[in-house]
Structure formats: structure tokens, C-alpha cells
């Protein structure tokens, strides 16, 4: 089976995909994107969390065939994703809350041009605010839970920029971490939210 879909803004084609292969397997083993992790492959740990058409999902539970024609963001594309969101948000502010124009805005296009569209390896210098906050707050120990938590936390902050502690816990309740006891993860999300607030 052949599957065509978009990963981190770039069209991808996976060939010879077996019936029953998960999106996680295709990302990790066929597309060379091992950032999404495989701690359980049963939908219990959240280490494989990616965004599928914007919605956080456990990629181990998504059959590869289901993503045909759809849009996936993984931890490798998180910095780019956040950058583009920031640009969009700036445009919204500039236009006093007018609905964002469809298609990439001029600003957005410039950013893409300046940084290139290759976020496959997670290069490109700057980190997403949530990534930086995880480092700064000491939320990373072994780091195996980190990619999934980053994708989930970033998504929460996108629609809830000022979360309460209870909101954070609820949003991250599907992501297991065995190392940190979660306190530093709470700190990291609070820090990212605070920095995001300052930036506006």
C-alpha cells in the first residue's frame, strides 16, 4: 500500500506500507522521523503523540492508511509550527482581530522563506517556546516522554493560553512520565504560558 500525506508541512509518500502498520511505525521506520516515541504502542502512554489535522492523537493507534491526504505535525516540526502560529497571531493583532486570511500571509511566507521549509530534522535554530521552557524548567530527564508531552502541551496552549493548574493536568493526563514526578513539567507549561503572555 502507498500512503500520501503531509508531515510538518512537507508532502510525504510512504511505499510498501503493510496493512496494520501504524502511523507511528511509518513515521519512525519509513520516513526517518523517530522523534515520536514508542513507549507502549497501545495508546496508554502518549509518548507517540502527534497532531493529525491539528488534533493531538496517539500515532500508535492510527492506522497508516487512515492518514491518506491528511496533515501531521510531529515534534520535529513543532518549532516551525509554533513560529508560523506566532506569525499568524501577529497578523491577527495587526489587523485588530480580523479573521486571518486564508492561505499563507505575506509575513508567514517570508518566515518560511527565511528559514526554509525543511524542519524534518528539527534544525532551524530556534525552539518553540514550549521546547525552551521544558529545558529551562528542568522538565527533561531521560526525555522519552518529552516529544509527546511537548506536542500535547503546545496544542493546549494554542487554544488555552492561560491555563490553570487543573487545566494543565487535565490536558496532559494521557502522557506518562516516569522520571520527573511531573512537577517540573507543570513548571515548564506555566513558564511557557507566562512567556507567551509577556510576548503578546
Amino acid at each position, binding site marked *: 500500500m502507498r500512503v500520501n500525506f503531509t508531515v510538518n508541512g512537507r508532502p510525504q509518500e510512504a511505499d510498501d506500507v503493510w496493512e496494520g502498520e501504524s502511523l507511528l511505525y511509518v513515521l519512525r521506520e519509513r520516513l526517518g522521523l523517530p522523534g515520536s516515541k514508542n513507549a*507502549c504502542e497501545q495508546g496508554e502512554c502518549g509518548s507517540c503523540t502527534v497532531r493529525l489535522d491539528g488534533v493531538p492523537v496517539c500515532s500508535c493507534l492510527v492506522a497508516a492508511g487512515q492518514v491518506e491526504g491528511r496533515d501531521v505535525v510531529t515534534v520535529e516540526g513543532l518549532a516551525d509550527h509554533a513560529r508560523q502560529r506566532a506569525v499568524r497571531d501577529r497578523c491577527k493583532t495587526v489587523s485588530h482581530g480580523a479573521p486571518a486570511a486564508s492561505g499563507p500571509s505575506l509575513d508567514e511566507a517570508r518566515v518560511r522563506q527565511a528559514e526554509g521549509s525543511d524542519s524534518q530534522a528539527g534544525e532551524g535554530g530556534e525552539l518553540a517556546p514550549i521546547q525552551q521552557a521544558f529545558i529551562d524548567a528542568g522538565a527533561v530527564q531521560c526525555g522519552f516522554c518529552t516529544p509527546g508531552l511537548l506536542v500535547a502541551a503546545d496544542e493546549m496552549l494554542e487554544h488555552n493560553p492561560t491555563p490553570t493548574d487543573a487545566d494543565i*493536568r487535565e490536558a496532559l493526563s494521557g502522557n506518562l512520565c516516569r522520571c520527573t514526578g511531573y512537577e517540573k513539567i507543570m513548571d515548564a507549561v506555566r513558564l511557557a504560558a507566562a512567556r507567551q503572555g509577556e510576548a503578546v
Partner: protein
Amino acid sequence: MPSPTRGFPRADGAPVGHPLGAPVKVTQDSRTRGGIGESTLRPDGTLKVTGEFAYASDLWHEDMLWGQILRSPVAHAEIVSLDTSEALATPGVHAVMTYDDLPTDVRTYGLEIQDTPVLAHGRVRHHGEPVAVVAADHPETARRAAAKIKVEYRELPVITDEASATAPDAILIHENRDDHHIGHVPHPNIVHRQPIVRGDADEAARRADVVVRGEYTFGMQDQAFLGPESGLAVPEEDGGVHLYIATQWLHADLRQIAPVLGLPESKVRMTLAGVGGAFGGREDLSMQIHACLLALRTGKPVKIVYNRFESFFGHVHRHPAKLYYEHGATRDGRLTHVKCRIVLDGGAYASTSAAVVGNASSLGIGPYAVDDVDIEAVALYTNNPPCGAMRGFGAVQACFAYEAQMDKVAKELGLDPVEFRQRNAMEQGALLPTGQRVDSPAPVAELLRRVKAMPLPPERQWESSEGADVRQLPGGLSNTTHGEGVVRGIGYAVGIKNVGFSEGFDDYSTAKVRMEVIAGEPVATVHTAMAEVGQGGVTVHAQIARTELGVAQVTIHPADTRVGSAGSTSASRQTYVTGGAVKNSCELVREKVLEIGRRRFGAHHPAWATAELLLEDGKVVTDGGEVLAGLVDVLGDEAVEVEAQWRHRPTEPFDLRTGQGDGHVQYSFAAHRAVVEVDTELGLVKVIELACAQDVGKALNPLSVIGQIQGGTTQGLGMAVMEEIIVDPKTAKVRNPSFTDYLIPTILDTPTIPVDVLELADDHAPYGLRGIGEAPTLSSTPAVLAAIRNATGLELDRTPVRPEHLTGT
């Protein structure tokens, strides 16, 4: 975050400087930024947040094959026949190997006792034991081929507890034992027995006004690190193999792997791949030998990754235990004696059971001063899953029981449980049951005072202006209560953990440190074989190099076996021992750098000969602060490199009859206060807060120290209320090998964990530091249990507590 504090208030409250420990000996109290004592950030942080950090399960190689292990579906059986022909004929399969295909006569391995078969031979002794291995070009092909291997088993009766293990007609789990414990164990199904007798407990019992007895059960806990067991073995041109592996100790793996492959150690190269947590579960080998065998057989790189199901079978667990205790005390709240018997279930293979017995027995009465003790600990061979190392290592099981006992005695005496503990708390100078003197600060009473002094979370914290926030209540979003039937309880516990390998083990580490000028800047490179498993050792190594060598740039070389052994990332030992080795090698490098400086510039300034010289901010300075030369000028084109071993002071074995001996290196103390709310109708527990106070000697990286304490605390919380591998007592089969059925704490289950860090230097250790990773896992569990008892009035003599234990249904 409470900042680490210095100073040690006396019992009367008067703060004094460093009364119990001499000043911390920092060889070089550096002004170079990013040195020890600062919360510098992880050098691997960026890679880990971008998804680029390569964990063992992320490895990939051109042409690589996937390995799969066939495991026994039963716990105890003879293998009557084994037929691999159909598996071998499957398209895509490159090799199938069984016991008969092993290349040499060395067909077993083990950390201490080589009793674990690489592949089963004629008999399986536990559920999930490896029987055959397959290599194929797709993981699913390998799985399906493994399923086509036909194995006929003739089941044998299972041994699952002390009674069945030591029955007169019990089947021996291992026949013809010739290990060094067989001479002193009362039955061949006992791995090791350690009695510890000091004073006369029977005589002392006569002085007791109250005597309290208890029987406790500790369930089987899993390390549940998130990164699955994994590695990639690449065959090399010289007939050797290069293994990229997630492990806790490269050189111990090497020592066990090479003889099975029939290769000299020099032909088995090992490089540490990214490790997704360990907690003891990677001390024993898992897929290492299997991957190497398949790679050498097929001539192709072979990768093996366990899935979660297999991971539950693929590593040892924490020993479940039965613990029998008797405590006596006088009316005025002084312990007269303690007697205890600790029975640990080691499962089918020895792993580290003997050392776990040593810990459980020597630390069996906790951080209390008691002169008359009678202790016995044993580990059994059974057909249950093999058990070995997990964070806390034997001290955890004992702490659960002795702390329950301390509460019971306090209650009998009508004393406050904290006060009663403080009256009996050991201090510096106290003797352990082994007769060993505790010769560094032992602030047990102070830690209890501190944890008790922390403000309590508000009552009825679930109430908000909009009514009850169910997220803050037991049951959470299942919306089982709005506060009806919910009662609060508070509990305390304190524990003692040894740091480093004990009982005479030669527990050394090695560090290679190099200093040179690169692109006009002095740069230090630190190369060790230390397994970074998430604990942050790499961060600390860079800090030590900055402090000792006065450079800003430090490169951490990947860990591999091209440098000497660093010992295990376990026993809270790496910052102490490999940190000590890095410090030592840096000091040797510094001496050489200063020699070069004297040679080159000595004639220009008398201070080169007379003053004490330091390296700071890229310069050679006098202790008075005068700059003598830049390191760039001193070094020029020369590179200075030192590889050296470093050891902590030696220990000795415990006497096999009396248990006496200076067996331990150092101790680590932590105390917890748990606040819980219990829905008494449904038996649901919500831990509201789990506060910890710990003495860390010296916080080399305060942010990481707090992270370790919070992480360890949370694993203890899991053990208190949810985590248990359920083994069927009739079949010895594991019933819940998945994250669906084996629960670990989520962010919703985990409360806030305020931490109070005390820094009392241990003069024997580098910088005065203490190993810290395990102590918080000890007292967390009994504190939560104490809080639940406090809330419900129930006895609760087992952990974890499940709802049915609280509702009696």
C-alpha cells in the same frame, strides 16, 4: 521552589554554621560560570526536545534485520521438543537460533551468579523466559516466524512462595548449585541468607513496656522506564561486533556478553545509545546477547526492540516481600529492641538478589538507634518472575514495614508519631545493626522537623466558588463524589539508604579528561563510560570540569568501552563515584597544565613557584586573585590528557553469622509527609501533597536534585496506591503486563511535591555530596500508607493499597 539551604538548626532551634560536618572541601572554589552548585541546563536538552536525541530504539542501519525473541508461555516446564523448521522457511527470515546454536560452552550469564540461560535448555523456570530468537527483514515477519516455532512443554508444579520453596520435597529451581552462597543457606531454593545480630534482643525485650508485632506484604513493582529495551548489534570486519545499547553499565554487560559469543572483550565494542530511564531495570542483560548472536550469525546488523508487553517480561522487577517485625519500647518512648525477618522473592534467577538481601537486612530497622537487634533476610528462588534491582534496592521494602511499625508503637504509647521517631532517630556517631559507625551527618530528626514544619495544604481544597471541583477530589473526573464521605489523613515516614556498592565490592570509576585549545579557546573533554539514563550525570560532569579547570567549554564524549569502567548507574552512586573520578582526573590535568605553565612562564613571575595556583575563567590565577597567564598561552599546541581510576574508601563484607562489618560507604536520608483524601465509601485515594525533606550533602545541580527527589517520590507514591505486577499464585504467570493493567502515576495522580533540601557535607565524599536518587523512593510509600491509615483508621499491612482494602469488599 525552595532554594537549597545551608546551616543546621539545633534541636533547640538555634541555627549554627556547620556543626556536624566540616566545611565542604571544594578543591577549587571557582568563579568560573557553570560550575558546581549552579542549576546549569542539560547538555542534551535541545536534542531531547527536538526529537533528535537518538534512543536505542531509534537506531537504524542500512540492511538491518529485526530480532524477535520467543518466550515461554508457562512458568515451569520441561521442554520436550523444539522445532524451528517452519519458522526458518518463512520468507524474509534470516536466522533462527536456539540453545543448540550457541557458539561456545558459556551459555549462561548473570551479574553475580551466572545462572541465567542465554536461551532455555531443556527447562523453563519462569513465565516469559527466552527460548529462541529470530532475525528477519521486518519486525512483523520476525514476530510471525517466532510464533511458528513449535515448542512442546511438559508442565511442572510451580514454586511461588517460601512454603513451597523450602518444603522438604520441593523441586530445586537450580540443581547442582556451586555459587558462593550455597554453603550458608538453609535450603538450595534460598539464594542468600543474611542474619544480623547485635546486643541481645530477647533480653532487651524484657525491658519493653509495649511490644508491637506486624506482618507486612510488599507487592512486586516494575521499573516501568518508558524507553523500551533496545539495541543494535553491528558485525565488524575483524569478526567482532559493535553493540549500541541502552544499559546501566557498559562494562558489566561486556563482561557477560563476550564469553557467550566466544570473543575476546576487545572484539566486542560497546557504545551507549540513548537511554529512556532505567531505575535498576537495565542492570541485568536483556536483548544484548541475542542481538549480537543474530548479527554474528547473519553477518548483518540486527536491531531488537521490546514492546511494552515484552518489556514486562524482559527485565527483573522489585522483589516482592513478606516482612515480620517486632518492636519494643519503654513508656518514655525509647525503642528497646527490634526483631525482624524479611523474605524477598527473587524469582527464577539470582540477578542481584544477594545484594538486595544485604541491604534489606543491614538497613532493616531504619534510621533509628537501637542497640539490641535480631534481623534475618533471605531471598528465595521461585518460579515467579526474576527480581533484582530497582531504585531503593532492598531498603524500600524494609522502610515500608519499619515505618508502619513506628506508627503502631507510637500509637500504643500515645505519642505523636513524629516525636516518637525523633526520640529514636540516629545521629552522627550512631551504630548501625552491623556495628558500623555512621561517621557523617545523619540529620534524621531534623528532616522530620523540617517536613512537619512545611505549611499544610488548605482543607477542603476542592471547594471553589462554582462548587466542588471534582478534579481535586478522589475519583477525579469520574465524578464519584462532591466531597461526601471524603476524609483527610496525614502521615510521616523517614528512611535510610546506602550509597554506592557495599559489602567489599571494588566500586571504582574511571574518567579520561583532556584539555587543549580549540579555535582559540581552552576546551575540556570528559570521557567516561557512565550510563546517562536521564539522571543528569552528563550535566554534572561538565560542571565539575568547569569548576576544576576554569574553562567555559566542556565537551562530553559519548560513553563507550574505549575508556575504563564507570561502574553502574545505580545505588545513587554516579555523582559520587564517576563525579569523583572526573574531579580526580581534572585535578591531575590541572597539575600538568600548571607544570607546563611553570616551564614556560615560571621565570617571569615568582608566584608560579610560591603561590597556590588555580584555573579560573580561562586563566591561571593565584589564590590571591592575580592573573599569571591565559590558558591559551600556557597550553599552546599541547594537549593534556589523563585517564585515571578513582575509588571511594573500601568496605568489607558482612559476617555471615552475625552480620557485623563496615559494609557501607555512605548514607542518604529523606523524610516525607503525605496528605491524602480518601473517599471512604468507594475506597478511592487522592494524594493531595507529598512533601519531602532530604539531606543531599551538597547540591551540585540544585534543579536536577529537586527533579530526582520529585521523581523518586512519585515512584514511591505509585507503589503505595497503584503499582503491582500480579502473578497468579497457581500458575506463576504474570497477569497484567501492559500499561492498561499495570498503572503508574499520571499527572492527575501526582500531587504537588514541595522539597526542602538540606546540605550537610559528608567529609568523605567529593565536594561533601551525597548520592540522592534513591532515598526519596523509600519514605514516600510508607508516608502515603500512614496518611491513609490516619484517614481511615484501618491497619493496612500491605502495599499497594487497592480500593477493596479500604472498603472491605
